[in-house]
């Protein structure tokens, strides 16, 4: 789906409201219902859907109710955990603030708003009234399972149907349609399914947090459990400590090149805007990517020497989870090198041992990787960063830029587009002794059903190569689940950043 649609727009407007409420929170703790600060959150459903406005769903009351749940997710709560429907949003905001002070943000990282879920009709093929019950009966003749009978009109026996779609292709009247459930269709690992009432639920034992269901649901029913409120609370606490002359707990941002590519203004403006938001320092994750590429090249050269077969990249956490949960046969082929986020966090920690490290990326799965790394405290996505900039009134165009640290180059900054990781590893490999000739490489560009099938061929040894780059998102991280712009624009903006690299 286009990165800019009415669902993503609503999500961003709401994030902006949450960010603004936290930024306006008065110095002393805000009491529930206070006009300024966190109390403002209670007004948001009414502000977005005032009485006179045309409703999107059946009525504005339902629209408001769903907005309330969206805000809950954006405050970092799982809808499934709600025990008291009458708890106000500002009370939740207060809890988020307290959670931020105690430093915990845990999984699962996605949540389904059952109120927003459309309970889409079960995925299957269906004969519509356009059926003419023709003489030729191509649907019947093409069905490999004899699942079609015609009496006045064709009908499909669901017991026999295997969903091959041949009948739909054969019908000259286009009378057969495919009913799809976008979230189920998008999930590469069959982790989302209906309950008895038709509402979707995620099975977290299977889920790899790729975020595809969230992107594809036309009702925006699947949301990320945000950590933005935690980051904003900590930024506010740091500002407050600074004002009172106490040593503040600093926050350091590490930002992915895929996020830098969401904006057209280039790295210096992003660096400056992160400082303007209150981050003490910022590091490019591309600097970590340089380390990842170097270490993966070294690991690959050893594997090539030992003849231990193909090595896959390891930087995509949704891919890594997929191997862990669904393709254990491939586990020994995944490089043991850490991700760019990990090494970037190490760089940041070395300079700022007491800081909270905030990763900013386009990805849902990074939240899980961050938690497991023990190095990264919080994860923000590109939409949340965008909303924070808007709420803070930061204009990227007019802000005075500042140069990023000279730690990253073309290789690292090229990581987030498909083929970029393999290219970086090969580039580092050719400068290793004995590896001048490089190696063969292939990419699995996106873990959709096709990508999964291809990956399984590599796992089974039916397809061979030396280096296999796997990215869960088609196009790479620039086409991640939580971005601001469409991949084509992001790629052009990334190319500009790379062009300006040494």
């Amino acid at each position, binding site marked *: 789906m*286009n990165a*800019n649609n009415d669902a*993503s*727009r609503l999500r*961003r*407007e709401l994030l*902006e409201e949450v960010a603004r409420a936290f930024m306006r929170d008065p110095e002393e703790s805000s009491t529930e219902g206070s006009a300024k600060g966190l109390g403002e959150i209670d007004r948001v459903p009414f502000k977005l859907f005032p009485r006179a406005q045309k409703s999107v769903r059946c009525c504005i009351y339902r629209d408001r109710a769903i907005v309330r749940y969206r805000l809950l997710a954006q405050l970092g709560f799982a809808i499934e955990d709600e025990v008291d429907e009458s708890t106000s949003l500002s009370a939740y905001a207060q809890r988020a603030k307290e959670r931020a002070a105690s430093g915990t943000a845990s999984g699962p990282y996605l949540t389904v708003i059952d109120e927003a879920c459309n309970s889409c009709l079960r995925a299957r093929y269906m004969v519509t009234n356009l059926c003419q019950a023709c003489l030729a009966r191509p649907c019947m003749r093409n069905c490999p399972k004899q699942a079609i009978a015609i009496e006045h009109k064709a009908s499909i026996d669901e017991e026999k149907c295997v969903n091959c779609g041949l009948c739909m292709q054969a019908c000259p009247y286009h009378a057969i349609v495919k009913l799809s459930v976008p979230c189920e269709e998008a999930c590469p690992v069959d982790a989302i399914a209906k309950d008895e009432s038709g509402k979707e639920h995620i099975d977290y034992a299977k889920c790899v947090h790729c975020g595809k269901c969230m992107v594809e649901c036309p009702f925006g029913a699947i949301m990320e459990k945000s950590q933005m409120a935690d980051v904003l609370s900590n930024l506010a606490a740091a500002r407050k400590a600074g004002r009172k002359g106490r040593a503040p707990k600093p926050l350091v941002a590490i930002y992915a090149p895929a996020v830098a590519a969401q*904006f*057209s203004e280039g790295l210096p403006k992003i660096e400056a805007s992160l400082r303007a938001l209150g981050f003490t320092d910022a590091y490019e994750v591309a600097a970590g990517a340089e380390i990842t590429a170097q270490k993966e090249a070294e690991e690959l050269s050893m594997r090539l020497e030992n003849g231990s077969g193909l090595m896959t990249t390891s930087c995509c956490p949704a891919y890594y989870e997929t191997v862990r949960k669904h393709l254990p046969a491939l586990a020994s082929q995944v490089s043991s090198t850490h991700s760019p986020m990990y090494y970037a966090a190490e760089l940041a920690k070395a300079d700022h041992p007491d800081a909270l490290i905030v990763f900013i990326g386009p990805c849902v799965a990074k939240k899980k990787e961050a938690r497991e790394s023990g190095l990264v405290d919080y994860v923000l996505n590109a*939409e949340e960063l*965008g*909303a924070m*900039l*808007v709420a803070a009134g*930061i*204009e*990227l*165009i*007019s802000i005075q830029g500042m140069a990023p640290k000279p730690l990253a180059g073309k290789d690292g900054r090229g990581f987030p587009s498909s083929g970029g990781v393999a290219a970086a590893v090969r580039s580092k490999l050719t400068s290793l002794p004995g590896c001048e000739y490089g190696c063969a490489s292939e990419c699995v560009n996106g873990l959709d059903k096709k990508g999964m099938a291809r990956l399984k061929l590599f796992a089974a040894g039916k397809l061979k190569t030396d280096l296999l780059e796997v990215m869960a998102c088609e196009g790479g991280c620039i086409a991640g689940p939580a971005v*601001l*712009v*469409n991949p*084509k*624009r992001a790629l052009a903006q990334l190319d500009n950043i790379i062009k300006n690299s040494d």
Partner: protein
Amino acid sequence: MDKRIRVTVCCGTACYVLGGSDLLDLGEKLPADLRGRVDVDGEPCLGLCKDSKAGARPFAKVDGVVLAGATVSSLIDAVRSRAEALDRGALA
């Protein structure tokens, strides 16, 4: 010679984040008959987001006329109306 139409897209952070980035790519999405007579430019914040009466973000202008809550399709419609108005004017 057809009169050229100037589309100005607000590149302020708020407009950009709320979908303005798509409007900057209007050039590629214009129907064939309009392509080639439209200039699309981005400009720093037009200040419209600070005016509560101006409407929803993102904002764009077609020959100076403000379009609120702009989408690629509403912008194409506005460009088409403008083109038709200009063509009528040229005939009269």
